[in-house]
């Protein structure tokens, strides 16, 4: 694997499988009374969050702590960044304090790329603007594999699994990373969205595109709903939240069109009643809570592999 995890495109199929299989090893830890491993003892992981995202930050924090790394949380609010410090100066400051990995969340696309040019340690992209969020894609792939192929699966990709990603693809870093990673793992990805919320030249992406969600549901093994931002309405991406919900929201009736084994995913946070109905979010098909748990496990695997932790747990034996 490369030194950084910035884009899902950085991962070969072998890399991605290594992460998923490592996560599978680590998942068995969660059932043990003592969840902590000593592998990253003495290493420092900085959570550098320029955007509020409590769920992603605590997921990375839990992952690093379970590997015994020291964790420094750096939030832009109320810090020197709020006083106009540049990303470069923040990076140099962290560097001087000696960080082994920086987990960065930033509102600007490419911020993780830029940071990687300024620090020595590993950079993990925890979401950069409307670009990518590769650990979200990894945890989604992990969740899909566990649900559809069984817990404990190792070495297998997602070959032939049909995944439909629904909603605001244009502004979604989750969608970009998932299209890249899931296709690398062999899944057949379809994007379903109104034309206004699909990027230009999307036809060159490794996926197919549809404007009609109802058409796609009966042939989907996985439906992944994206959060829709209400402010998109004012920029004329769609006429109203109600209309969006009628055409692209997943309610109980639409869920009924899915094959029996199909699962429903959402990266959170959800707008219940907009892109996903409460009945669907709380149904047995929903993997939303599992995704959170799998997020910690997958991020442990990423930090472990990037930082080259020692004493790999023989937890499976």
């Amino acid at each position, binding site marked *: 694997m490369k030194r950084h995890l910035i884009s899902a495109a950085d991962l070969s199929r072998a890399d991605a499988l290594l992460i998923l299989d490592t996560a599978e090893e680590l998942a068995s830890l969660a059932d043990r009374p003592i969840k902590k491993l000593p592998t990253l003892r003495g290493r420092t992981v900085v959570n550098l969050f320029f955007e509020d995202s409590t769920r992603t930050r605590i997921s990375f924090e839990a992952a690093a702590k379970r590997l015994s790394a020291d964790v420094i949380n750096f939030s832009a609010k109320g810090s020197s960044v709020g006083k106009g410090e*540049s*990303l*470069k100066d923040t990076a140099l400051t962290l560097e001087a304090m000696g960080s082994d990995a920086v987990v960065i969340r*930033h509102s*600007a*696309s*490419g*911020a993780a*790329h*830029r940071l990687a040019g300024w620090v020595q340690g590993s950079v993990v992209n925890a979401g*950069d*603007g*409307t*670009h*990518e969020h590769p650990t979200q894609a990894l945890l989604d792939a992990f969740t899909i594999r566990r649900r559809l192929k069984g817990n404990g699966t190792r070495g297998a990709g997602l070959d032939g699994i049909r995944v439909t990603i629904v909603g605001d693809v244009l502004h979604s*870093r989750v969608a*970009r990373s998932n299209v890249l990673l899931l296709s690398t793992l062999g899944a057949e990805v379809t994007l379903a969205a109104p034309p206004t919320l699909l*990027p*230009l*030249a*999307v036809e*060159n*992406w490794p996926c197919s595109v549809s404007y009609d969600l109802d058409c796609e549901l009966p042939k989907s093994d996985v439906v992944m709903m994206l959060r829709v931002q209400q402010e998109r309405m004012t920029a004329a991406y769609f006429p109203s939240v109600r209309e969006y919900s009628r055409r692209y929201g997943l309610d109980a009736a639409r869920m009924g069109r899915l094959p029996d084994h199909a699962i429903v995913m959402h990266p959170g946070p959800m707008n219940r009643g907009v892109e996903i109905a409460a009945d669907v979010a709380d149904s047995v098909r929903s993997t939303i809570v599992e995704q959170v748990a799998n997020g910690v496990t997958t991020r442990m695997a990423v930090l472990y592999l990037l930082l080259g932790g020692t004493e790999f747990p023989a937890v499976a034996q």
Partner: protein
Amino acid sequence: MNPAGLPDPAIPDPARAPWLIKGVTVTRSGGQREEFTDILLSDGVIAAIGPGLSNPGAHVLDAQGLIALPGLVDLHTHLREPGREDAETVETGTRAAALGGYTAVHAMANTDPVADTAGVVEQVWRLGRAAGHCDVQPVGAVTVGLAGSRLAELGTMADSAARVRVFSDDGNCVADPLLMRRALEYVKAFDGVIAQHAQEPRLTEGAQLNEGEMSSRLGLAGWPAVAEEAIIARDCLLAAHVGSALHVCHVSTAGSVEIIRWAKSKGWRVTAEVTPHHLLLTDELAAGYDPVFKVNPPLRTAADVAELRRALADGTIDCVATDHAPHPVEAKETEWSEAAFGMTGLETALRVVQLAMVDTGMLDWCGVADRMSVRPARIGRLAGHGALPAVGGPANLTLYDPAASAEVVGPGASKSRNTPFAGMELPGRVVATFLRGAPTVLDGKLA
């Protein structure tokens, strides 16, 4: 300077001794090309052209292997003074211009304060004369403060000592169609031209990069070609309607070329420029999010680059203009979306044009002289510049070695270092620049 291009007697000329350029290749006014000939510069004019010239008191410059071009003229330069002297000054910007082979530059109006009054344009003009590295012809703003709401005092700027003829809100588009119509009409009274930065503002809110495969992949807000083309189409129609002169700044798309070609076929008074970077670079370079490649209009696709080259070759695009846009380091060492738009270009323009146009066989050196000197001087209504070498004509010359080649290494004379060509091997070398018979550059260094 008077219209004949003679030196202003009010300016003492420190380098009065004649210069004899030996063994140079030149395309004369009239089109005949002569190799291994000599040019004698004396009293600010070309005193003689022909083989075997001698002049006992003259400085002699061995110019074997060099090409003599008329001094280059840039229609689009940001000198940043007044207001952003941390990025560039008239002094440093015109040094860069001279080193790039330029004898005249048009200084854009988006300074602080904006060049929207006679006072500011005269200040810039005087700073240029004091610096002396090349002529500085200020461009006046079209609207007060570049705000796009009411016309600046265009006539007063035209009548000032700076004799402004080109007006532009560059950096901003004159988006209001009525205001654009009035501006086009109004400047007819003093043979002015409106140079439009064609960018439909609503279609480019927050725009970062050419809208296409790269912007979609990188998650950067797209700057669609149609936002440029829609304004160009509208402005061509307006210029035709009122019979005025429109100049289109930094054309960047194949679609824009098609519209301009159509407008010219109608005989409308439309001219256009292209930047060196749009002739060479594409949006693929944004892949690493390095804002040195962030520019407005954005780098486009390889198909656009190919069409821009064809259009420059066939004359649909009249000239090359640098859009030299210096920025301090901190304006570029940021996230892409935070970074300033713009690239420097004066010191590399001619070399990039050689690489993109001459070495590809699309333009000969006579064509380069036309697109980088003759036509921009004509569009800018700039007397004393843009004339192919002729006896009695102004001694504004650039001596260029097309056989040289070197990596672009900084820092240059510009105060800023935001060149997208850093580390690239570019052909050619500007050996000397003469402004009214006096060298501003000799042996590739400031004289």
